[in-house]
């Protein structure tokens, strides 16, 4: 299966939610290191979660990359269309291991085909919860990433498709990560119900009220986030944001 065929499997032409699938991992034709299969096999062997049937529900799977894919494939058997949103490159010295995700995309493709999902299948957006892990160091490729509201459909688009509920699935937490909170709060304020499930603890999904994240709808939010990513890095690649709102260093 070549890269294009692989992408077509995960984001088939005609399926409405395919438009949001991120192509970046699919376009890279560099070889995958042999060890990248280990994380995928480990994730496949770990405890699984199979969602109960839930009408009118969008899934957001924010789990460690390979596990997110394993869960996404389980969701496919229950009728959800996995939409991979991995927006990051592979490369030497990468902070975020995308090789194991790419391996999972390849290995999981036949399973996804078997699911024979209809075009109308509701979406399960798949994220890697490790996306902001790690700290830059000399000689490392900083490929960490965050999600932005524009990476997802709007609430209007979801509601127009009779999707009225969002189930956020995480491992070890119920509150959404800060970047995702920017998305979920917009959806919640537009009338979508937000449920959360912690695979490490909860027995069943429960509604949450998304709290307003820092700089919600702030001017220049995107640039602020880009620099914020750097701000937490070892070695200080970051710091104050050069906008009038940030004060110091800009007067």
């Amino acid at each position: 299966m070549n890269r294009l065929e692989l992408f077509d499997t995960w984001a088939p032409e005609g399926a409405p939610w395919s438009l949001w699938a991120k192509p970046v991992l699919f376009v890279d034709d560099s070889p995958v290191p042999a060890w990248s299969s280990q994380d995928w096999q480990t994730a496949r062997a770990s405890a699984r979660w199979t969602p109960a049937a839930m009408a009118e529900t969008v899934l957001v799977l924010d789990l460690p990359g390979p596990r997110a894919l394993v869960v996404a494939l389980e969701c496919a058997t229950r009728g959800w269309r996995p939409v991979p949103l991995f927006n990051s490159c592979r490369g030497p010295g990468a902070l975020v291991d995308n090789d194991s995700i790419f391996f999972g995309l390849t290995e999981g493709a036949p399973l996804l085909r078997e699911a024979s999902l209809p075009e109308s299948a509701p979406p399960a957006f798949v994220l890697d919860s490790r996306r902001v892990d790690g700290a830059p160091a000399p000689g490392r490729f900083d490929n960490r990433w965050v999600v932005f509201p524009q990476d997802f459909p709007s609430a209007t688009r979801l509601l127009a498709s009779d999707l009225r509920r969002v189930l956020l699935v995480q491992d070890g937490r119920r509150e959404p990560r800060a970047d995702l909170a920017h998305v979920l709060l917009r959806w919640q304020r537009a009338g979508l119900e937000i449920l959360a499930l912690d695979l490490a603890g909860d027995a069943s999904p429960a509604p949450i009220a998304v709290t307003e994240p820092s700089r919600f709808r702030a001017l220049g939010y995107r640039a602020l986030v880009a620099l914020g990513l750097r701000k937490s890095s070892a070695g200080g690649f970051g710091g104050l944001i050069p906008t009038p709102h940030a004060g110091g260093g800009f007067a």
Partner: protein
Amino acid sequence: MAATESPLGATARFTRAEFAELRRRTVFELGKWDPQYEDACVLADFAVTLEPATWRELATLAERLGRETLAAERELLARPELHARLGLPRALRSCLRESGTRGAACGAARVMRFDFHWTRAGWRISEVNSDVPGGFIEASGFSRLVAELSCLRLVADPTQALVEAVVRAVGVGARVALVHATAYTDDRQVMVHLARALGERGFATGLLDPTQVLWHDDNASAATSWFSGPIDLLLRFFPAEWLPNTRGACDWRSSFVGSRTPISNPGAAILVQSKRFPLVWEALSVELPTWRALLPETRSPRDVDWRGDDSWILKPALGRVGEDIGLRSVVEAREWKGIARSARWWPAHWVAQRRFEAVALEHHGETLYPCLGVYVIDGEAAGIYGRVARRPLIDSRSRDVPVLLRS
């Protein structure tokens, strides 16, 4: 031709199958990784067209603007007392002052892009992107695919023009580092696109973040596992005003002053990138007739009644991609409120500019506002990055549209 008769036309919409194929090829062959923005595809399903004479007119204007811009940049480098009026961060002003003793960083393969709009008064420009202009994938690759499909002609190829400018600067086979925010895939895709084009011409390329550029005696080098050794040319796609945020992690100042390694573009480009550049025109000796003719009146927000007069719009001094532009009747009320508050509190970091009345393109029942970003590379007009918006504001929600010659 009356000024209201637009020199711009449009092709018919591509069929659904044609457009799906175009989108797919743009992603997989050209490496555009961000074709979707919320609910919309950012690629237009048609092309804007113009006559060769219109392109020649735009090219002439852009080349004049390019010459004037470089002359102004040179003078501004020697006039540090004007830098505060440009709204530059203190760290940059302090650094640029050193150019008097260390000398300005060596520039090469200079790239800038002027954003043209057709208005009731003829051509107007809204800004120059003189620091890190993007759009190469769309202006070169996507436009070429559409040209082949439509049997129209590309005006010019900015990617190839940049590659040839690098050839002239350092010769074929040199080592080129492409410096960018590596965590940002929409920046990285531009660097991958340019690296591929440079590689095809025989250059050795490395994709680096600014902290991975090492400086010794004002010469750049790298020591990563994927790119190591001296660097012959730096191709920078990391905004100049972000560089001070690297702080102690690298010698960011060398991108502004001292560097003997040629940089495309050197940090001093930020002097003319600032939207407050027109506020220092009267203090410059350099003549700027084309700028004066094409840029709408631009003033400090302190000096005009932008609150009571909707003919003024607000722009952040160092804004990019149309972000945070305040057109009261166009942006959402909440957004306008935030912009207005910021301009009131920090007027030195904003400008007020007269709004121009862009002539819309009516296309299949849609009212569209085109913006033609004309590249000038090494002094020569080198292509067009076209965008269209459903409102008279070009920002991240705009669609990329090929701009092609009719004959």
